[in-house]
């Protein structure tokens, strides 16, 4: 198993710049600064690195869209607003190895000719933010950031911005809107951030994990990175496993690793010797996979898509056979109803309505017709909003209801019986 991101994660003192440099830190940045800016982009393109935030868009290609010499500054925004339920990989990276992220950002900034960069960190991660802030101070003191990066003719400033705890601000355009000081509402695309984003300037928003992969790629070369993983999914990926497993936590595996093996070998198998019932492979917003569907599925973008789910952010939630699926869905639906920003009609009203129906069902007040109503609401919401939050609610609703319909039906007929008794 290759290690790209978690190489030094458990080593003592890794958060300090001395220890980080001792272990070969900032060497990649030194190397980068000697390269042509376009050469760095080509290197990342060749490495096959894809965005680790959820969408899986090729990072090099994203950088390639940024127009040069527009007369406006280019901004790199580091998306550390990790709020997807089940996902906690970025937190580990920032908490244990903050300089890796800073180095990755510096490399990206050099490639994009960006001199001002922001880390948008989730409001609840205040303790993580302190670690990152200390690391930034150290980097400034060591001359890695500031007017002259490592003594070269390249200036870079990185600022830390603490969000206020809204899930939607993890979406790149609402992150930009929030950073600008407005209400965190997603923007209509086009224009895309690459051409007109933060302060109407070309902007790249990258996930923490994506940026953390850059130093390794620069040091070891694009070819070494491209050699790991499958044909289209290169490199390694962090999976944050939670739920009914013996060893929940963050694991780094090569893309293309079999899902069931991962649960068995890495996460220590299902807890209490129970049977696997279902897996949500990439954070709460992706379709659930039932046990039979997990068979033969590989942990990479394509294989999961073929199986009817998505890799997402790698927040894997494992559910055993005791789990009541309507209750899980109700919790997920409540989350999206709470986190819907309220801008577009379908998401604002649909997420709330679906959550209420599910809460009613759990309380034993459901009607059999509610099940089809849930699917109808999902149809009415899907693909009709500015950002994908509505779709993120639709995917679990539709997959849970269709794959575990009998459980919902049992719950509703039970409710019907109770009503009749009354």
């Amino acid at each position, binding site marked *: 198993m290759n290690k790209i991101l978690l190489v030094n994660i458990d080593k003592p003192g890794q958060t300090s710049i001395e220890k980080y440099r001792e272990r070969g830190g900032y060497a990649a940045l030194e190397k980068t600064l000697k390269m042509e800016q376009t050469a760095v982009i080509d290197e990342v393109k060749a490495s096959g690195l894809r965005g680790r935030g959820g969408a899986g868009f090729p990072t090099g290609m994203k950088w390639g869209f940024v127009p040069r010499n527009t007369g406006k500054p280019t901004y790199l925004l580091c998306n550390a607003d990790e709020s997807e339920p089940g996902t906690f990989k970025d937190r580990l990276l920032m908490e244990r190895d903050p300089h890796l992220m800073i180095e990755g950002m510096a490399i990206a900034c050099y490639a994009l000719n960006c001199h001002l960069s922001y880390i948008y960190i989730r409001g609840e991660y205040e303790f993580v933010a302190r670690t990152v802030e200390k690391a930034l101070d150290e980097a400034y003191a060591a001359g890695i950031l500031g007017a002259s990066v490592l003594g070269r003719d390249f200036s870079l400033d990185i600022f830390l911005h603490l969000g206020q705890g809204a899930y939607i601000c993890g979406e790149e355009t609402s992150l930009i809107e929030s950073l600008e000081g407005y209400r965190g509402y997603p923007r209509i695309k086009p224009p895309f951030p690459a051409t007109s984003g933060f302060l109407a300037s070309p902007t790249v928003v990258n996930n923490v994990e994506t940026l953390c992969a850059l130093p390794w790629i620069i040091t070891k070369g694009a070819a070494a990175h491209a050699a790991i993983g499958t044909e289209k999914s290169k490199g390694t990926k962090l999976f944050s496993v939670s739920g009914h497993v013996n060893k929940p936590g963050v694991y780094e595996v090569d893309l293309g690793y079999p899902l069931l093996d991962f649960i068995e070998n890495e996460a220590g198998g299902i807890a209490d010797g129970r049977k696997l019932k279902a897996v949500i492979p990439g954070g709460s917003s992706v379709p659930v996979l039932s046990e039979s569907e997990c068979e033969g599925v590989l942990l990479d973008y394509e294989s999961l898509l073929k199986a009817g789910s998505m890799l997402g952010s790698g927040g894997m939630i494992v559910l055993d056979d005791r789990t009541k699926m309507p209750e899980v869905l109700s919790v997920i639906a409540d989350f999206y109803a709470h*986190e819907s920003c309220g801008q577009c009609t379908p998401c604002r009203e649909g*997420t709330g*309505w679906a959550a209420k129906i599910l809460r009613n069902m759990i309380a034993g007040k459901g009607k059999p017709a509610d099940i089809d109503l849930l699917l109808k609401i999902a149809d009415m919401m899907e693909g009709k909003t500015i950002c994908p939050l509505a779709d993120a609610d639709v995917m679990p609703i539709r997959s849970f209801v269709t794959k575990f319909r009998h459980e919902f039906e049992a719950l509703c007929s039970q409710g019907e019986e109770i009503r009749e008794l009354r």
Partner: protein
Amino acid sequence: MPKITINDQQVEVADGTTVIQAAQQAGIDIPHYCYHPDLPIDGNCRMCLVEVEKMPKLPPACATIATEGMVVRTTTEKVKQAVRGVLEFLLINHPVDCPVCDQAGECRLQDYYMVYGLHTSEIPLEMKVRKRKVVDLGEMVVLDQERCVLCSRCIRFFDHVTGTGEMQFFGRGDHVVIGTFDDRPLTNPYSGNVVDVCPVGALTSRDFRFKCRVWFLHSTDSVCGGCSTGCNVRIDHRDGIVFRMLPRRNVDVNRSWLCDEGRLSFHEIAAGERIVRPLSKGREGMQAPVTWDDALSSIDSKLKEIARVDGADSILGFASPSATNEALFLFKRYMAEQLGVNLFEFRLDSEDRKVTEKEDEILRHMDKHPNSTGAMKLGLMSEDLGGIEAAISAARAGRLKAAVIMYFKPLVGRPDDQAIEARIAELAGSLEYSVVLASHKADWQSAASVLLPAATWSEEEGTYTNFQGRVQYAHKANSTVGEILPVWEIFAKLLYASGVKELWLSTDDVFASMTATVPAYRAITRDQTMLPGVLATQ
């Protein structure tokens, strides 16, 4: 100039036109809430979803720029399903209290429900999200958060038109509400506009509240008489009573807006007692009712006598900048042609200077008369005299013997109105013979030798020339009562009584005479004075 196809109809539109605008040009109505032609695009309501070939999802027509060869469909089953879904979402938490809602009858929710919805409600009453009702937002606006569709038009209005940003969203998800911070009242002089931009009953007018159901109202297109901006308005009235004034869109003048002063200016029409019949001073010096014919023939003979005895320069024609061009034209025609009068004035204050002076950067002008430019273009301003003060001293000195005075109280009040009225009173009082045209009764009118009852703003029809020199036509909203006559008709009758054989039976006739003789209005047709109006030559 991209060519696009909408529902098999080819349209060529300007660069940067959105699909919804292109559809409007093609006469196709796309349902929408948040899109407003004079506000920035937001794209949040998702009602204007259309099908565009080669696009996987349904894009919103308001935020999609028309590009060459684009094929748009607005009536496919997929689009209808989507719109129906959005409408159902909008209605699930709506209180459906149409019986007590003032917007009923002109509500987009009602309209689109009849076209796209017609579904039965699938949400039980107790599941609805309850929000606050009857929130007081100052003197112009009442807010009902439950009825709101959160289209953000009001927020964008305050952010981008007035730039004051009083309103904002509060909360998240289906608990989002609109409001002002700490329920502070809207004190903005344009706050009434949010009632118009609100497509539903969330923001309703405090002034119009419960006054009348909108389907009883008749609408008349007019021009605001509140100041020299000449905003295009719609007068809504029933049984001769004006209930409200709404802006009419004219991109070249007021866009879709109207200031609050102008919006409420119609109250001035119903305020105070009207003069309902001509009054003339008898031997005892008391005003007594006379017939129109007697009044006009006595005015004509008396003025002609003064002109013969004391010379035409002892007669002043004092016009009102609130009267229509047609009225002023006939007034001047009578005075100049029949009596040979050279002295004309209309300035109560310094309207000729104030007419283009801005009160703020949005609409309002300092001059609170709708037709000062028109009076100037008709030459009703003599440099020899230079305002009402000079006229008063001339009258005091005995150089002025008689005057025909038109005076209408401004629809938008100013602090110095009383002082101005006192000057008019002084002028009328220091003359030997005065003919006064007025709409409402006032104490000073007892000084008038003859008092003629004139129609007020909403009862007049004709053109007004705004500060830009734009000639705009205002229709008559309600008829005059009693023996009141429009000003143009009074002078048409006076000209007839004076022996002129030309007949003016309508304002159209007067307009035709005016465009034939007045250089500033040459070659302007009646149709041109309709929306968006036409600029008079300098």
